[in-house]
């Protein structure tokens, strides 16, 4: 297969895919094509879409590759799609930030940081699949420990958790370590 053919096939697969496509999955479909070639073809495609200012861009998100609309066209796309579901409120965003940086973390630990009850917010985040219970903490009551999901990475356009923006350092103050062992859930897996 010629390189241009591979690129064309990959573009088609990305177009029909439901979510971010991993190199692994692309490799399975494109039998006989080296993973390295898949990766470099993806890079090429990404650069082409970017450089020719196309309406869709190829982004690396949540461990895979996905076609997304260009940010400059956001208003037009929104006009076309219509609708206006509730935007993410401060409480939701702050709670999500705490979970993202401190995962795995219990409800009580989040409440200690925010200074308010977070039951409602946690339920919203669970409903929206942005967080999930990943384990139980080995302390009395065995509370759930929460972590973020691949949907979280997709929503915030993150390749993986190591790409979270760096937390600002707190001057002169060091944070205490959160004690307690973690017990993995049977179904729990890393995202």
């Amino acid at each position: 297969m010629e390189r241009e053919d591979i690129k064309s096939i990959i573009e088609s697969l990305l177009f029909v895919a439901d979510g971010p496509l991993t190199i692994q999955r692309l490799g399975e479909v494109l039998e006989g094509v080296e993973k390295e070639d898949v990766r470099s073809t993806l890079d090429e495609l990404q650069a082409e879409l970017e450089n020719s200012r196309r309406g869709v861009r190829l982004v690396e998100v949540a461990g895979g590759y996905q076609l997304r609309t260009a940010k400059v066209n956001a208003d037009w796309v929104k006009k076309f799609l219509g609708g206006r579901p509730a935007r993410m409120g401060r409480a939701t965003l702050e709670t999500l930030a705490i979970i993202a940086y401190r995962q795995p973390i219990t409800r009580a630990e989040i409440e200690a940081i925010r200074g308010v009850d977070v039951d409602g917010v946690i339920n919203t985040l669970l409903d929206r699949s942005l967080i999930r219970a990943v384990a139980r903490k080995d302390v009395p009551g065995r509370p759930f420990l929460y972590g973020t999901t691949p949907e979280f990475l997709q929503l915030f356009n993150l390749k993986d958790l190591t790409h979270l923006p760096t937390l600002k350092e707190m001057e002169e103050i060091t944070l205490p370590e959160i004690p307690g062992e973690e017990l993995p859930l049977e179904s729990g897996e890393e995202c």
Partner: protein
Amino acid sequence: MTTRVQLEIFEGPLDLLLHLIKKNEVSITDIPIATITEQYLATLEVMQTFNLDVAGEFLVMAATLIHIKSRMLLPMADDEDDEEEGTDPRAELVRRLLEYQRFKDAADQLERRELLTRDVFVRSAAPAEEIPAPGFRDVSVFELLTALKRVLDRLPKDVVHEVMLEKITVREKMTELLDHLRNQAKILFESLFAEVKTRMEVVVTFLAMLELVKVRAIRIFQEEATGPIQIEAAAGIENAPAVLAMPDPEEDQHGT
């Protein structure tokens, strides 16, 4: 009174404290505890005026502040066999504020990313999330309460207590406010209260405004952090009749 403002709009006592610290332009690590405590308690009072459900957390923080304030007044006891020996009574609060501030910043950073369904979309994309118009910032509840306190402070003190049931309903005020917005694109928050004479009417006007925000008929915003608070019609004022067809927020609060 059953008209309640949902508590989620308050981010909690730490948020209120950070707001006061910022407003007073003081350092988190060296909080003038007397001033901040006083302003914190004053804000709670305003919140209670409106029967806002002042959550237990706010009261716990009030107690903490008063406790710190009293400890600051005591001389440092060097010989005391205390585990808190020699530490600034504010240290724990400072630690919590800094940590909370850190996550507020993190939340801001996350929000600035290219958000799916706000900035970028995928095929079979979910409907767009609502985003605020550029150039404006949302007014926080605390700023709103501070502005309201200014209005209340301007009122003449109620010298005589007139026993008179003046029927100004929240609904009437909502209609009035929407009428204003038909003639003017924007109105100033303070001008809402220009003609208002009594505390009760201030409260009713304020509640009417909150009701309209709740049903998304109006928006409240500032163009800059210290700028005047302004009010404008939200989507289209033609939705107004629908708004007024909503259940009267006052229906179940007669006799207050």
